[in-house]
């Protein structure tokens, strides 16, 4: 089986380790990985801030970049939700505004082929034990777009629970938003910081060494707060934990 990786712009520039982890993980599970170089940002920052017209070229670009790939896998529930839920809406609106049906068709063709990483692992590959080894105490924050947008449910937790050596502790108030919210973090910095501070306080209170998530944007916000507070708690993307094995432990 082959899958195309949609690495997302945030991971590409700031968290390449997450992308590398996805490649190693999928290859370990026998999936050949393609990386279409024409991919870019999914357009969510623009769209969520109200700039739908600025988003359209990126919808077109993403759809073209992944045309012909049966499975598109991305380590971001947020970007997956953008493509699955909002691309078709953007396409339909363009059509309704008399700008043709091309965008709507491209979006409709792409949306069902996009999988968030844990969906791909659990639903398509049918695995929960990916053979990972990570001997640390971990707590998991489910990001909102994955949780409510995609309905990931307990897939991430099941994957984590199957990791050898990993001690998974529940995060109190796990399903509450961390306060990142894209441009919300910049437009409403005080509320965003208050929400994030409550989240890292809850995470630190679990005694975990690692705060794990499946969206690096939320982790950038929480990690930034943790480092400013000189907390020993570190943030890690789920993919990096799943990629870690006894032979090749996460450095």
């Amino acid at each position: 089986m082959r899958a195309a990786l949609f690495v997302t712009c945030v991971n590409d520039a700031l968290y390449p380790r997450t992308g590398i982890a996805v490649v190693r993980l999928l290859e370990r599970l026998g999936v050949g990985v393609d990386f279409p170089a024409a991919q870019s940002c999914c357009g969510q920052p623009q769209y969520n801030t109200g700039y739908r017209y600025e988003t359209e070229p990126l919808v077109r670009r993403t759809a073209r970049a992944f045309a012909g790939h049966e499975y598109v896998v991305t380590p971001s529930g947020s970007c997956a939700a953008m493509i699955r839920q909002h691309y078709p809406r953007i396409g339909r609106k363009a059509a309704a505004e008399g700008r043709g049906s091309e965008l709507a068709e491209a979006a409709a063709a792409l949306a069902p082929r996009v999988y968030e990483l844990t969906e791909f692992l659990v639903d398509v590959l049918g695995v929960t034990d990916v053979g990972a080894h990570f001997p640390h105490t971990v707590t998991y924050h489910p990001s909102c777009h994955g949780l409510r947008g995609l309905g990931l449910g307990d897939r991430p937790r099941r994957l984590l629970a199957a990791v050898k050596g990993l001690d998974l502790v529940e995060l109190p108030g796990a399903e509450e938003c961390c306060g990142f919210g894209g441009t919300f973090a910049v437009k409403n910095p005080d509320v965003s910081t208050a929400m994030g501070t409550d989240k890292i306080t809850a995470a630190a209170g679990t005694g975990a060494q690692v705060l794990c998530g499946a969206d690096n944007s939320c982790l950038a916000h929480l990690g930034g707060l943790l480092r400013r507070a000189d907390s020993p708690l570190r943030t890690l993307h789920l993919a990096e934990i799943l990629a870690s094995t006894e032979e090749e432990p996460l450095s």
Partner: protein
Amino acid sequence: MTGTYLGMPAFPDFPAFPAAAREAVRDEVLRANLRHATHTIRDKRAGAVAELADWDRLRAAGKAVKDHTLRHLDRYLLQLEEAVTAAGGTVHWAADADEANRIVTELVRATGEREVVKVKSMATQEIGLNEALEAAGIAAYETDLAELIVQLGHDRPSHILVPAIHRNRAEIRDVFRTEMAHWGRPAPEPLGDDPRELAEAARLHLREKFLRAKVAVSGANFMVAETGTMVVLESEGNGRMCLTLPETLISVVGIEKVVPTFRDLEIFLQTLPRSSTAERMNPYTTMWTGLGPSRGAEGDGPTAFHLVLLDNGRTDTLADEIGRQALRCIRCSACLNVCPVYERAGGHAYGSVYPGPIGAILSPQLRGTGSTIDASLPYASTLCGACYEVCPVAIDIPEVLLHLRERVAQGGPATRSGVRVTLRPADGHTAERAAMRAARLLLDRPGALRAGERLLARARRLAPRRLPGAGRAWTDSRELPTVAAQSFRDWWDRERSDPR
């Protein structure tokens, strides 16, 4: 045209949401009050909802009834008018707040009275009726316990259902002690902060008002078109006192509150109490059709009934394909109680009688996006979706927020006072728009993107700890993510590139 809607208290000088929220975030007492209250009620709601196996079907049915009614609103309103009139009531139509206030003021004046008792009502708060009556020399007494606290405290409500949610018991005791005597029976001395003591003080104070009042003003949770029946749901019984004791009853109700048949109430009498106060059954549900049950003869109920049907931006909202779903709202406030932003910012930051997620989509539609506060409300959300998840009529609040953000950032078509207009983008988005365009140009050219990433990687040792401009908001409280030495793209090219 980006003008502020005229008919509604528009908080014209109200600061943008982020500035208004800043104060609330820093108020430790307020945050503790709100956190405690919202968490308690959201947990109870979840339990009450989980008890019903058919919740999803009830939710879908409520949505369907509301959507159907809104689609045929003209027909159902006329049917309602006919039924109310046949039952001895008088129907008045008010296009905006000014007209509604004028109608109510004249109706009160005609009775010769100088005071009214009020049932808790969002519609009359929306139009600023108390202030309008006061200007006309008529005193309006709120009788809902929380509304009384807010009114005595010269405060504004901060929650749809629990208007004094931002106050704790000690604060309420202080308000009762210092203010009750100015308006009627003083608070008993000594007065502690035990809820029972506080409720008793309010009960004694209000009893005088109930027994004296000749005129009552209410809203309604529902209006039944086929029978002309008005429905009020409340928890204390104070509303029922207002609805049954005075001789004249004036009800001011938003036109979207109509439902076609009496049977439709079966849905909402299940979903509303469980969503709002986590109660299986509503404690006081009062229904009246035209005059009192005895039509003015013996028994309870008013001998004169006036229904003021309020538009105030609702038909304009109805004209909007995406935004119209906000009119499904049954004011249960489940979205407020679950919203992490409301929990930190408090209700006052929303600059409207409708705070929280529903306020963030309702106010900018009813009032237009012309004012600073209204242009900032669509951004007062992280789009986490918790509000949509709990909404008993399935209003996709995140979808409407995005729709309104687009209106603010890019302008577009809207309806104002029944006229289709094209709105210009709201002020203050020029720099943001330029940044979004620049980002799009960069992101749409992977070659340029890669060059940018490499430049960033090379300069990463120079990365400042604090950013200037808009980025400052990030670095004031958070460390920046470190830029990777090599982007994923570059790693892929080095390690995996296999020109296929």
